């Protein structure tokens, strides 16, 4: 097993400050960077088309210079926060520190405290790049907002006072290129069961007022093999909310059904007062719709005589690697070969992920590599030799590799300058169908 935190070729995640995109994803929130002048550019250049309301070039930043490194940048930060209120019309401000602020040791908290004391909806969070990656710091950002902002509204949002309300923690904004569509689809599905959902990010959330209701939720839903777990742990401590934990991204009918049935069972334990019959009818309707398509599609999958992908390599985060593997094998017949988890999964979660992946099939083993150094993952793919036509599901970095290997290619991960994603979702029944469309569209494009 490769050592953790060594050299990385072709970064597929950002550093801690990359979680500023989680702030950008909250309607009308603004990240304020206490960092070097390039952090914002690096993050927007990685995710692309990720400006949102006040991200990218709009985000205030102290733009550390040599003088600030020597004398500290607290005073500069104070001025920039003060003037942010004059220049930008925002509902929530989140101050994120970069490496410079972090190493120099500026006391950001007390600067931010001054504004909090004056009644401003402002939060500070420590995100120097060397501390962790953005999968991890996403949780730090969310926890900071809960502790420093949401907690101010506890009075009006009594703990677990709404039995049907749940907090959802799933796709990480922007790091999951399908986050907007996914969150929308989760919300639609869960509402179909009779729940109300705080999705917290994106246009389908209610912005900061939705965040204020986090304590009211009866329980949490975590869809992730590991990232985001500290958030639900924290909420358990704060508000006693239990968490329904689904470990991989549910794509297609099998996993989505399992996910929704699991939610229903959990909701019953939490006394969420759900009309199970109605909920089951909803699931059945969704399932029927799905299989109508698959039934119709099967002839094509089985009979298309000019060649379609028969095996796949996947390079993605653990949630997608497992979710896509299960989906591909059982719902398209494409066999997952070597797959690569490139999210720097902490050691303690790896065994569980391997087990989850192993449950995909009792007939075969899918070789999984935890490899944050994606260049090394590519070396493994280069060496692999499989019969038939293959497809690589990865980031923009993998397009030319696919060409070299004579494989089809579908861009499903960041960074990707070769694909435009707006509100497409891959989760749920509709997400499975969409992924099928994308895979076979790619293959069919090579004909005619």
């Amino acid at each position, binding site marked *: 097993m490769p050592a953790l935190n060594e*050299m990385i070729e072709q970064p597929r995640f950002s550093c801690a400050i990359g979680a500023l995109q989680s702030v950008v994803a909250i309607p009308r929130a603004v990240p304020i960077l206490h960092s070097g002048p390039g952090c914002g550019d690096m993050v927007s250049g990685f995710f692309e088309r990720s400006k949102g309301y006040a991200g990218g070039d709009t985000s205030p930043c102290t733009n550390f210079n040599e003088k600030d490194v020597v004398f500290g940048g607290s005073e500069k930060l104070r001025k920039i926060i003060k003037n942010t209120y004059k220049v930008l019309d925002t509902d929530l401000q989140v101050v994120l520190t970069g490496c410079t602020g972090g190493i120099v040791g500026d006391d950001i908290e007390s600067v931010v405290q001054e504004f909090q004391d004056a009644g401003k909806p402002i939060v500070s969070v420590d995100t120097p790049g*060397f501390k962790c990656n953005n999968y991890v710091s996403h949780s730090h950002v969310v926890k900071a907002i809960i502790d420093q902002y949401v907690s101010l509204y506890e009075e009006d949002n009594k703990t677990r006072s709404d039995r049907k309300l749940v907090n959802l923690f799933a796709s990480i904004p922007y790091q999951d290129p399908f986050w907007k569509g996914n969150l929308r689809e989760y919300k639609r599905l869960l509402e179909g069961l009779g729940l109300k959902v705080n999705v917290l990010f994106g246009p389908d959330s209610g912005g900061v007022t939705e965040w204020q209701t986090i304590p009211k939720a009866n329980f949490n839903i975590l869809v992730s093999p590991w990232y985001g777990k500290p958030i639900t742990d924290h909420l358990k401590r704060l508000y006693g909310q239990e968490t329904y934990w689904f470990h991989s991204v549910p794509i297609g009918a099998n996993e989505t059904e399992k996910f929704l049935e699991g939610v229903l069972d959990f909701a019953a334990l939490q006394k969420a007062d759900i009309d199970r019959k109605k909920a089951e009818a909803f699931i059945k309707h969704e399932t029927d719709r799905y299989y109508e398509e698959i039934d119709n599609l099967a002839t094509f999958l089985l009979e298309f005589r000019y060649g379609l992908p028969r095996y796949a390599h996947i390079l993605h985060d653990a949630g997608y690697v497992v979710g896509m593997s299960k989906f591909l094998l059982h719902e398209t017949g494409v066999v997952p070969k070597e797959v690569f988890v490139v999210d720097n999964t902490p050691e303690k979660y790896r065994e569980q992920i391997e087990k989850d992946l192993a449950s995909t099939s009792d007939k075969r083993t899918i070789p999984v590599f935890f490899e944050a150094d994606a260049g090394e993952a590519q070396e493994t793919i280069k060496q692999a030799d499989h019969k038939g036509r293959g497809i690589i599901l990865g980031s923009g970095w993998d397009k030319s590799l696919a060409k070299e290997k004579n494989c089809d290619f579908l861009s499903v991960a960041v960074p990707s300058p070769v694909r435009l994603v707006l509100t497409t979702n891959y989760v749920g029944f509709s997400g499975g169908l969409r992924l099928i469309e994308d895979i076979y569209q790619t293959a069919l494009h090579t004909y005619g």
Partner: protein
Amino acid sequence: MSNINLSLPAVEIREVRTRSVTGYDGKAGELVQKAHDGSLRDVERSFQQCAGCSITKAACMTVLIQDAAVIEHGPVGCSTCLQEYNFTYAVNADLRGVSNPTRRRIFSTNLQEKDTVYGGLRKLEKTIRSVYERTKPNAIFVLSTCAAAIIGDDIESACEEAEDELGIPVVSIVCEGFRSRVWTTGFDAAYHGIARKLIDPPKEKRKDLINVINFWGSDRFTDWFAPFGCKPKYITPFSTVNDLRSASESAATIQACSTLGSYLAAVLEKEFDVPEIETAPPYGIAQTDRWFRALGKILGKEEIAEQVIAEKKEKYLGRIAQLREKLQGKTAYVTGGAAHGHALLSVLGELGINAVGASIFHHDSVFDSGRDENDQLMQRVGDYGDVRNYRVCSKQEYELANSLGKLHPDILLSRHGGMTLWGAKYGIPSLLVGDEHYSMGYEGIIDYGERILDTIENDEFVKNLQKHAINPYTKWWLMQRPDYFFETSDKKEKGKEESQNAGIE
């Protein structure tokens, strides 16, 4: 004249070397005058947005070298946006005759918290070896970051040791973001490393090769140099390590942008006897003529220059006049880096379009050559008149949003991503041309003029977007002067007055 000292690991920053500034609000002519008489001073801002970083500029000039590998020594975040250059390389390879564009080799040492305590050199040494094993490059560049610089890693020594061990150049590039507010210092940092470690003393002098310092624009120069019996040698994107080694053998150096290549051109002239063309790049007729003449002079082929100029006038002046007629009375605003922004202002001047203002990222008071003739803004002001509302903006979007909303030109011309959006939000047709050679020469005036006409004509999208535009800026801010947050004593007073008028504070 600036200091060039190749024995030092780090290039001197632009604030010192070229007395560059990042803030100004006034007339272009006055800026040029102040810059030249030495009275120009930089400003501080009490409100700032994300600026830019030297590392991306240094990366831009190293990642695209065909057979090199690049290591970013710092946390992984500091190399994440470099993936864009992988895309650029694949897309533009064709323009440079690279038929099989290979994936760019970009690495991070991935510094962790404990490395900031104990130092990151061990990781760097290990990474250099692994990168060599994995990629077998002809050179490795190591780019520094804020974190590595603050903890004081001696990157230069690590590179030297690795160089001895591996037998290829391992080049340390000092480009951490906090070092300079003028992020074009990153270009200089890359060139400094290349000049120190790659460029060899000439084995021969080639009369037929001219260095072209540029990004990745379309190839105008093969045609232009042909009458002079010369070919372009594009550096550094798409060149090989060996191409760079022999850059000292060329007959001359020209550049697509006098900000980009200021340092490298001067180094080639002063350290390797390759003369730099003695004028700014060829944008606008007057400057194009000057440029061809200066090229003729440097090559000892003045009569050919005159011939080329005469032919081009014969061929293009008619069409340029027609364009001028169509564009008469139009107004434009320009945003981009120096000096390409200046170049666009010249092209506008040539087309008879009224440049009502500009937001240019920084301003160099002097050039490394020490020659005022390289100053494209000076040439613009002299050739086509002054530009009011000339702003040096350090990529501060709030200043642009403010300025543009008030001036409301017929078109916004932009050189860099992110800025055109603000034209569109106001319903102003906006044009970004990424190809820096597109508007060069007589041909460029026509190409660019036609694109401007086309953009102004096709305004349906921006008009529709305007109706639904989301604007995060407060009404109060959009009523202030764009330089409201400049921290100089007289400006502060002005600002206060206006804010009282707006009834705020």
